[in-house]
């Protein structure tokens, strides 16, 4: 297996899988009697053709970077965190509580506090499944799924019964104070002139980039990352080396949940300016696809997040400009997960076979 060049694994196979997913999506578009070429045009121009489009694409990408990193960090410890959705939901609650609790004088201070709140709440929501996995061997996939639902109910309760302002009808918190609004791309020096006031992309994007870098450092440069990776590759060997499984699972999942929770600084603090139901919009699940495509590496996660940001924004435009429902994006997303994740061996096996045969042939020669 080590005879297959690295670029095949990190580039060729994902790209081919992506292509297959897109081709099948195109066929689906044809099936519902629409024009796939036109669909692509609308998506590309809507998501990438203007600063407005980019503003939204990068906004969505920011969400996906956080959830993608969350999945990736857990994955390195061989934990499949499917609970990003719930953790990001709770992160939103944390951010909202922090922002509503005090009259923050400036966004920068509020941001730091909100980051702590979001990360803590997200981490807390990952803590129970992590603990049960570490200590009692409860399958983390199932418990995190369950926690997604429990989290949704909890948020529902909080919004309806606790946080909804008097007299308001929709289950949402009050608006945050204007002082806590994060600067959007429009407000930033240098690039501000390109973006209109309405684009939601905000300084959280840079925090997401920072998170990528920090995750990279963590995983590949620190002792903790070494232990996480070692445990993820071989649990028995990690135990031999005196690495505590409980510690690794807990720490990795807390970081993972914290990253998912951090997403809330973008969608809740940066864009919504209040907490609404379902503010996560499936970003937790998209994080799985992003991490899969990005091969659990921050650079890959970043690129895949941009791709999904493009799909998301482009899909929104599709619904507006054509009669293709926005659900097409859900289908594309499903196909990307299917082909880059579950069907990965479909191409991998023959491709690796090819390289092994070539290696063997070279050996003979």
């Amino acid at each position: 297996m080590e005879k297959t060049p690295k670029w095949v694994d990190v580039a060729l196979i994902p790209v081919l899988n992506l292509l297959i997913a897109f081709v099948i999506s195109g066929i689906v578009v044809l099936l519902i009697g629409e024009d796939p070429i036109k669909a692509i045009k609308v998506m590309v121009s809507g998501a990438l053709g203007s600063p407005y489009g980019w503003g939204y694409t990068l906004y969505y990408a920011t969400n996906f970077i956080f959830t993608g990193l969350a999945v990736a960090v857990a994955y390195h410890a061989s934990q499949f965190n499917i609970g990003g959705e719930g953790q990001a939901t709770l992160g939103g609650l944390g951010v909202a509580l922090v922002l509503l609790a005090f009259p923050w004088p400036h966004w920068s201070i509020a941001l730091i506090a909100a980051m702590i709140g979001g990360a803590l709440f997200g981490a807390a929501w990952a803590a129970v499944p992590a603990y049960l996995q570490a200590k009692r061997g409860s399958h983390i996939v199932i418990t995190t799924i369950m926690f997604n639902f429990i989290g949704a109910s909890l948020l529902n309760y909080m919004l309806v019964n606790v946080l909804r302002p008097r007299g308001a009808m929709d289950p949402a918190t009050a608006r945050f104070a204007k002082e806590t609004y994060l600067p959007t791309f429009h407000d930033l020096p240098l690039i501000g002139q390109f973006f209109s006031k309405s684009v939601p992309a905000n300084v959280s994007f840079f925090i997401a980039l920072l998170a990528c870098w920090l995750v990279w450092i963590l995983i590949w440069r620190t002792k903790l990352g070494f232990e996480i990776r070692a445990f993820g590759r071989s649990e028995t060997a990690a135990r031999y080396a005196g690495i505590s499984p409980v510690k690794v699972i807990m720490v990795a999942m807390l970081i993972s949940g914290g990253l998912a929770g951090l997403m809330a600084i973008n969608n809740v603090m940066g864009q919504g300016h209040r907490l609404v139901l379902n503010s996560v919009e499936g970003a937790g699940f998209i994080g799985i696809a992003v991490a899969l495509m990005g091969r659990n590496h921050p650079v890959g996660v970043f690129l895949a997040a941009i791709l999904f940001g493009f799909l998301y924004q482009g899909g929104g435009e599709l619904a507006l400009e054509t009669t293709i429902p926005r659900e097409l994006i859900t289908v594309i997303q499903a196909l990307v997960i299917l082909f880059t994740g579950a069907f990965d061996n479909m191409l991998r096996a023959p491709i690796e076979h090819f390289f092994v045969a070539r290696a063997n042939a070279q050996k003979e020669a």
Partner: protein
Amino acid sequence: EPALIYDLGGKFDKSFNEAAYNGAKKWAEETGGSYKELEMQSEAQREQALRKLAESGANPIVMTGFAFGDTLNTVAPDYPDTKFAIIDMVVDQPNVESIVFTEEQGSYLVGLMAGMASKTGTVGFVGGMDIPLIRKFACGYVQGVKAANPDAKVIQNMTGTTPAAWNDPVKGGEIAKAQISQGADVIYAAAGGTGIGVLQAAADGGILSIGVDSNQNYLHPGQVLTSMLKRVDNAVYDAFKAGADLKPGIKVMSLADDGVGVALDDNNKALVTPEMLTAVDQAKADIISGKVTVHDYMSDDSCPVQ
């Protein structure tokens, strides 16, 4: 080019949003004009949807549902040259027309009919999301029922606490069945798409139901007593017609100006007795003349009758 944004229940909820759609369609057919429309997919995309339409130059932009209120409040100032109209919510901005209905009056009328049609003396109410607006429906309905039969019992249920409550026909059906078993023989559904399940369960259970917003009598001919019409279609039609000249401020659509009413057509002809017709007409006249006032739940967040 005007634009219309539907709320989460979706364009074809056979109820609230569909009424809006019908208004837009009527306008398009009459004027031959075209309009943009957008269905909300998720709570979080409201702002993007609004902005998207505003950026694209649509004017006026009409949206259905109170849930847009907060978002519109922040978006409207950014597009001073665009006119917005919001249904079911008051948004105080110089370029926004807020259209509200006196649903309590329409509900009073159907309540009156329910009270008269009920043989068991027990009627039901199934609301969608538990919010003051829907309690307003319920309160008007109860007042009407009691006007017809002071001893009548009204069973009230809400479907849920989130927007998903507008779109859960299975749950609507279960709630209706529960009410039937408690003796209800007329059930009023004010629950958007959820109401479809209520009407279905009522028809299955051999009792009468009352539709809402659009005329839903046709869904189960002979089994839907009537529908409480909320002329969202007219509101949209008017807004589209006014175009860029849309008048900001609050517009109340009441019984007096046919903003609300009861649906009478061939489908429920056999169910509506002459006495009912007389009573409804009388009540209508009394309400318009001010002789009868129907309490509005939202005025003080309480209902005098249960």
